């Protein structure tokens, strides 16, 4: 008989496969804060910039996702760039223009923009 635990393990494996098939293991994962507080601070604009850049410029090695609020209110909107084997980079107070520059410098060339990171 399959127990609920067996079922959940199967469901988890399927879920992980679905996430992987969306390119989770691509070199760079970008998380944009999309809770009420982040949206009020302007994160929708930032999300738009990333979304359209990924679509139009064919950034195949980027996995984009929204996330809830991590809790750093006065530095919102926040954006994280996570790469396997590296310290995740956390940007604070990201604007449309900054998002653009993060795409050009960090996502395309791998240059972290240190002045904007949360310490």
């Amino acid at each position, binding site marked *: 008989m399959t127990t*609920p635990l067996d079922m*959940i393990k199967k469901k988890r494996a399927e879920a992980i496969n679905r996430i992987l098939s969306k390119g989770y293991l691509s070199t760079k994962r970008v998380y944009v804060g999309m809770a009420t507080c982040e949206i009020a601070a302007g994160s929708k604009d930032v999300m738009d910039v990333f979304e359209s850049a990924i679509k139009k410029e064919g950034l195949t090695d980027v996995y984009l996702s929204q996330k809830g609020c991590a809790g750093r209110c006065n530095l919102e909107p926040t954006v994280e760039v996570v790469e396997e084997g590296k310290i995740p980079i956390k940007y604070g107070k990201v604007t449309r223009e900054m998002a653009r520059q993060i795409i050009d410098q960090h996502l395309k060339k791998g240059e972290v923009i240190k002045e904007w990171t949360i310490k």
Partner: protein
Amino acid sequence: MPRKYVITLCDGPTCIHKRSKELETAIETELARHELSGRVNINLSGCLGMCAKGPVMAVNPQYTVYGNVTADDIPEIVSSHILKNKPVARLAIDEDHLYNRFFRVFGDVNFFGKQMRIVLRNCGIIDPENIDDYLSVRGYEALAKVLTEMKPADVITQVKVSGLRGRGGAGFPTGIKWELTARQKTDEKFLICNADEGDPGAFMDRSTIEGDPHTVLEGMIIGAYAVGATKGFIYIRAEYPLAIRRLEKAIADARREGFLGENILGSDFSFDIEIRLGAGAFVCGEETALIHSIEGHRGMPRPRPPYPSVQGLFDKPTLINNVETWANIPVIILDGAEWFSSIGTEKSKGTKVFALAGKIKNTGLIEVPMGMTLRSIIYDIGGGIPNNKKFKALQTGGPSGGCLSEDYLDTKIDYESLAAAGSIMGSGGMIVMDEDSCMVNIARFFLEFTQNESCGKCTPCREGTKRMLEILTRITEGKGQEGDIERLERLGNLIKKASLCGLGQSAPNPVLSTIKNFRSEYEDHIKLKKCRAGACTALTGYEITDKCVGCTACKKACPVGAITGNPKGPHLIDQGRCVRCGLCFDTCKFGAIKRS
């Protein structure tokens, strides 16, 4: 050295006791020997929750955690892990705790590193609208475990062993509440999640739901299994549209995956959840008023007993817990009740989420282990007071709580210690005030809120808070009378004793605690007609001194045209027209305006 590293040393009390401070020196020496100083960051975290294996340290990226580390192990860790990127297997702890995923992303930032995230473990690292993301971080595994291996009574025992207490503020032991509901023998039982978050400036529940809605659902389903409930409600205020939308999606996804509805995960247990929207009345956070509101009646409390666990929604036994309480449940089940009870103090276990706001550098949502001092929250996590101002008071517990002065900064966060200090844990609002805040005015602000929100059912709360507010208002307007402080104390104590529900019983707290801790400010207002913070407009006046150079900036800033004077000549404030807004004071670059 190919990559950048961050070493996180656990700075919790147990690890310090096990000589973690010696490790810090050893690491620094070893790094210096390899000429790596400054290239590897060392930071101190709050309790990492692996006290049994302390002292504990983590090396990021990859978040390799080492336990039982001694100073003699440090050279090996540095030469193998840092220099060659080969983690030291013999020391590594392979404990897959739910909470430590958060630290893989955020652990190296001081603000986050000092915290401990159990409730908010997934907030900020997963997509809240995708059930796959939740499943991938062991979501609903606790539910499956409960359905596979545990009887309802076992679940209740685990919650009791964990020591979890109600996070809505009152701190009633959760396990006992569950047991009381489980004991009732009826055909139908209900379960409620109280998401009616109403304290001004508090947003713990909203962020939890918006960041990780499934964890709340999973906690509720486990609770329903334990007490034998068939139907659950989430009572949430309509002014949280995004949280509601995410909950709706989460409920639909959970139904589709078989976590809600008939025969959950193939078992014979069935349960479903519906959302009920509140119209934003503060009193509806009180459990009996909330139940009335769900039933379709006006939101008003009723006397207890009978408690909801015996006679609640539609007169059936009802288990009602707060969002944060529910979100703790999956962790207790998967990481273990014993582990959970190792975090915190003797009587308060686990962590507490706070919304840190007011005059503090790092405002934000934080989660810390019980037992942390207020001082370390304000200075280590919050970064202290901005603009070189002096700390004056900390308000905890929202309109039901109290203001604590500097003398209480070393108070530990737990239900009893905060109550002994004259405040309450509350649901988690934490507002920091600096020297520019007038304590009488703050007390008036909170009382005005509760007075407005009083439902009017019982006389002490309806009439008493009104009279107290009148007295406070006249004090802030410079019309305070001799004996007003005593009148406030007498009325306040009476309202606390005689009110029907928690709203009235706690409404005088902000006033009584400020009288206790800042009595001299009340005396200043009444006897000297002075507000030392300059916040009570009626007691504050502005004058222009001879430092005035005639720049005309204040004249332009004054919204009522009360300032006269020619360019380069001295200016003057017409006291009759002045509305004491303080704009001139803020505008003047020469310090020529005096506030009195």
